[in-house]
Structures are given as C-alpha cells and as structure tokens.
C-alpha cells in the first residue's frame, strides 16, 4: 500500500519534472526563433543604409570633421561603413575593410571630433526611426572601437 503510494507519487513527480523540462525546452526554442539580432531590430539593411546617408549629411555640414574626408572616396566609405554596421549588428555581412587603427592612423583625430561623430550617428539613428534600445545596443558595440581609432593618432 505504502509502496504503491510512493511509486505513484514518484511517477507523478517524474511527470511534473518531465513536463517542466519540456516546457523549458519549448520556450527555449521559441526564444531562439524570435527575431533578436540587432540588425533586425534596427530595421535591416534599408535602415542601416539610410542611417549611413543621414550621418554623411551631418558630417558634410561640420567643416572640421569633413576635412578628414578630403582625400576619401565618399561612395566607397559609405558602402564600407554600411557593411561594417551590418556586420557589427550580426547581420548577413562580413566587414573586410581595413582595421580601425590603420583606417584612422595619423589623421589627428581628437576626442572632441570622435564625440561629435558619435552624436551625429545617434542623431541619424533617431531620425531614421531606430528604437532607443537598438541605438543603445549599437553604440555599446561601437564604443570599444574608440581604443582602435585613437591608437595611431
């Protein structure tokens, strides 16, 4: 009697545990299927391209910052930056341009210039409708590049 009760309760708890694990596994799968890459939350390539164009207009209006681009091919730069933002946000791209330290070496970039471009990028993302959480995520992924950009100044 007592043994069968124990067995019953054991099998019941096994069932409960099994059901719990199953539920967890299912929710785990469900979570994996949600569109959670930053690339998707930003709005995909159309938004990234629009952000890059918006950023370039803001840079063009800043006489000090735009002088760094005097010898650059702007179209090439725009394409390269769009690929980099796509790559950084876990999109389907592979940035294979020059590393950040070599790309900015001996340009004489100051903290003030760096900060200004960060502000332009954030303002561009605001204007192109990127949600706050995605903007924070993107800025957080780009922030460590400061060290690389400034290394060879």
């Amino acid at each position, binding site marked *: 009697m007592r043994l069968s009760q124990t067995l019953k309760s054991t099998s019941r708890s096994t069932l409960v545990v099994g059901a719990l694990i199953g539920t967890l596994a299912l929710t785990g799968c469900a979570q994996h299927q949600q569109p959670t890459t930053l690339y998707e939350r930003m709005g995909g390539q159309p938004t990234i391209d629009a952000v890059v164009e918006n950023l370039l207009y803001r840079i063009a209006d800043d006489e000090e910052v735009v002088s760094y681009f005097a010898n650059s091919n702007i179209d090439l730069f725009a394409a390269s930056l769009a690929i980099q933002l796509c790559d950084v946000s876990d999109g389907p791209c592979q940035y294979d341009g020059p590393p950040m330290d070599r790309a900015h070496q001996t340009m004489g970039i*100051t*903290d*003030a*210039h760096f*900060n*200004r471009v*960060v*502000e332009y990028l*954030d303002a561009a993302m605001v204007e192109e409708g990127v*949600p*706050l*959480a*995605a903007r*924070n*995520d993107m*800025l*957080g*992924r780009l*922030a*460590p590049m*400061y*060290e690389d950009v400034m290394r060879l100044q």
Partner: protein
Amino acid sequence: MRNTGSSKRRAITAAATLGALLAATSSMAGSRILGTGAVSAIEGAAGGGLSPWAVLSSTASDDEIGVTAAATRAWVDDYQLTVTGASVNLHDRMEFSIARQTFELSTLGGELEQDIYGAKVRLFGDVLYHPLGVWSAGVMHKRLVDGTVPTALGADDVNGTDTYLSASKLLFNAFLGRNVLLNATLRNTSANQGGLLGFGGDQGGHAWMAEGSVGVFVTPNWVVGTEYRQKPDNLSVADEEDWQSVYSAYFFNKHVSLTGAWLDLGDIAGLPSQRGGYLSLQAAF
C-alpha cells in the same frame, strides 16, 4: 520694499538667463555626450547628489574648457541645507570646484557654514569608451566658517581634507535596453556630517568610507537611480549614520539640468531619522 524690488529683479534676471541657456545652441557646449558631466554633488564636484563621481564637470573634451554653476537645496525634518557652487573643467583632465554650504538648524536654532575647495584629476579612461570606465582621484579641503558648535560637540578640528578615488562606467543596453551608469568612490575622511559638525572626535579620526550609485538612463536626457554614502561616526554625543538617496536627474540640454531626490540622512546632531527632499539646478557652459 527695496528688498522685494531687488529680489524680483534677481528672479527676472535668473529666469532670463535660464531661458537663454535652454535656447542656447549646442555649438556653445563641450563635445562630450549629454549627461557625461553628471550633476553637481553637494560638495561642489561633479557627481550624484551625495557623492563625487569620476567624470569631470560640464561636457568639455580634450581641447575644451567648461564651467558650471549650481544651486542646491535639501530639506529634511529638522534641517535645511543650501549649497551654491561652481566648477571649471580644463581639457577633461582637471576639475576645480568651490562650494559654500549653509546648514540651517531649523529645530535647534542657528546655522553652520563651510567652504569646500575641490580638485579632481582624471587618471585614465572614459565613462563611455574605455572597458574599465573612467578613474579619477580628488581632494576636498573643507573650512568651517565658525567652528564653535562643532568644537563644543567634541570635534577635534574645524578644517579638514578629504581625499578620494572614484570610478564611473556606463553599461550600454544593460537593463531593458537602457544604459546603466555605475559609480564607486572610496573616500578618506575625518569629516563629521560632511564637515558641518567638524572633523574627528572622541570615537575616531581619518578613515576610508565607501560610496556608490546605480542609475538607469530611461531616455538619453533622463537618469533615475539611487546613491549610498557610508559615513564615519566620530562623535559620541551625536550619532552619525550612512546617507542614501533616490534621485532623478533631467538634462534639458548640455547647459541645464535639474535634479530631484528623496533623502534619508539618518540621525544628525542628536535628532533622529532625517528624511526629506532635494532639488538642484545646474548650468554648464
């Protein structure tokens, strides 16, 4: 009559200045990102309300100079604190600050005043870009205007110097997609109630105290958080307890911020459980 006229004129001037600041263009501001200059702490340095932080005041960057001015009032059950202060930031490397604190003993009667001269140097890092955040060291020299009451309570000195080491770091996208600001400060001090009750006493002198805060940027303009400041307990006749606050700071732009807080300052000079409100207005150039 004359007083009313002059205070009215002063109010109009203040309102006009504030209006001009709110409308000021960003080209007049430093280049650091909005909010990275924190607000003015009650001892004059850039920080939260209660504690200095590692960031330097204003938004001045490596080739810029910034100046801030702040007016602060705190009301707790039996006391009122008024602080006016100013600071200058040289190239985001050095910060110099000055503050005058007036502590009105609403229940006991009378008031205590002290001047605080501060200097802070950024040792290394950046609150946004460096993996370890920004680290700074600072000093605050405090001088009581009239040390009679603190001396009568048993304080050893009427002047004192705090030194501190502070670290601040912004964690991007850390809480519900919002950025989170962390700060920790270690302070060596002998100040009783921040210095208003003198320095040292029968129960102790200089000691290391820990201070910290956590804030969430709900939007890029608005940070909400809490702050904690450990305190010494040097006077046997006047129990001293740790301070804490819950704060909300709004940055209208790089020039104007308004901070409100709820304070719990514990026992002060024999009167228990001092709680109340805090408002601070800062202007930065």
